[in-house]
């Protein structure tokens, strides 16, 4: 083994393995468990590395290239590590009309993430713009990790950042 390379710890051992086995019973093909399997990897590791894609491929009888093709299609799978708090803010038209872009600016400023998609220097925050979150009547909605937060205004941002920091 070359210097600096750590041995890969499999995701699908113990509890995640048992969960995957249960998921496999829901579908007539192994391949259909791919999206759930990728969610399990992301839950365990925070993101999905090339090595993890290879593991998923091995477990489900697919090729690593096929798995990567699926991972890259869906926007919610992280192909790189992200901040401890991952923020997704809707800026599609209905929210845009209600000032979503001001919320994004406030969030970038208060978190120190500065640029969309970048991670703050303390590793705490990554902020991205997303298309419609399906809560247009509660502009501006955002996801902080798995928490869905409605009706965020620039004024509420400081309090939210404090809560999650």
């Amino acid at each position: 083994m070359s210097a600096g390379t750590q041995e890969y710890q499999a995701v699908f051992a113990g509890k995640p393995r048992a969960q995957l086995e249960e998921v496999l019973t829901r579908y007539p093909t192994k391949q259909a468990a791919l999206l759930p399997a990728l969610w399990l990897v992301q839950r365990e590791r925070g993101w999905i590395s090339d090595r993890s894609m290879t593991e998923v491929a091995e477990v489900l009888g697919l090729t690593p290239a096929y798995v990567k093709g699926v991972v890259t299609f869906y926007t919610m799978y992280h192909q790189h590590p992200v901040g401890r708090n991952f923020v997704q803010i809707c800026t599609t038209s209905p929210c845009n009309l209600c000032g979503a872009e001001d919320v994004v600016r406030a969030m970038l400023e208060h978190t120190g993430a500065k640029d969309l998609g970048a991670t703050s220097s303390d590793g705490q925050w990554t902020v991205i713009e997303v298309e419609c979150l399906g809560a247009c009547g509660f502009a501006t909605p955002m996801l902080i990790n798995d928490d869905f937060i409605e009706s965020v205004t620039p004024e509420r941002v400081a309090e939210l950042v404090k809560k999650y920091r």
Partner: protein
Amino acid sequence: MGYPHKPHAKETVVLSKHFGDPEARTYKGWVRRGGYDTLHKALATDPAAIIEEVKASGLRGRGGAGFPTGLKWSFMPKEKKKPHYLCVNADESEPGTFKDREIMRWTPHALLEGTAIAAHAIRAEVAYIYVRGEFTEPLAILEKALAEASTAGVFGGIKIYLHRGAGAYICGEETALMNSIEGKRGNPRIKPPFPAASGVFGMPTTINNVETLVAVPPILKNGAAWYKAMSLSNPKSTGTKLFSVCGHIAKPGNYEVTMGFPLKDLLYELSGGMRPGRTLKACIPGGSSVPILNREESESCLLDYEGCVERGTMLGSGGVIVFDDTADMVYQIMRLARFYAHESCAQCTQCREGTAWTTRILERILTGQGATKDLDLLLDLADNMTGKTICVLSDSCAAPVVSGIKKFKSEFEAYIAGKKRPVAA
């Protein structure tokens, strides 16, 4: 407006009856409200009789296409030779639409009950509820409800599973949704074969929207005639529908009204009208994929499938986006085009290139670099994007662009002529 709130006197509350009532989320609470009664009876009824009743009710698909639900169910093979599947489309992602989210948050058992009845009607042993990945709260609520109801054994031999999406608008297209369940990229499939012949896993499949399925138990409980009588304008549009009102409006939220309800009343009475001192400029009545209406058209539009077509638009998903006189239509249409460019699966050239170039040309106009011929170019592009691709995402991008240029041309011309300050796009 969030829940709980008292329904407006002009609302007809059927699907949203228990919104805002946390007890209705629990299995016991749902049973106490008469829930699962209809399912028990349905499971003991011949599937063909259920299909006939739903056909007679006039219920049409609430996801956007408005296809008659009973008829869709009747396309499933009469002789069962292979496993049948039901897919529930809970991938609600159409800008302006947030009704299914509210249904799943407040009445998860209504969806499970409708799902089980539909599965029985099409003789499916397995139903997958495809919930968009961002809907963390509805997912958690549904998961709990499903566990409770499964433990109580109400579904007979029918198995219901939740399948979480992972961020892709296109997976709301029924064939893309099936590919996504199969563990593939969410590319729409060429039709035929239609899902009833070859759907998920190559088996006969029916795909129904959340709101469509929650309408089924009340229809079976109260009868097709009761449902059909709820119609204010056209006998082809029956029952109630949830309308999600958002954008520049005093009281955004979901409102349930009888088909044929005037859009004007929905905007000015139920939703509280414009913000103080503002006037209505435009409205998209059926989610971002349908043509934009100007003020006059909006104020004379009846909310049913036919009434919207009469005004040159579509009822779609019932996502009502309101623009007041402060809205920059060029900027907002660019944002919509950018949405479709972002969400294109990129299979078809017309869509992949068309949505991207439409966005770039609109950005160019906004930054003051546009030319008069750009408007013709946009319309020409839109023509090439309409009716020429595997699915309708490309058409959906063209709809607001074409109607926007037609109805708000002077706003585009102002940017092109340098009469309006350029904006960063």
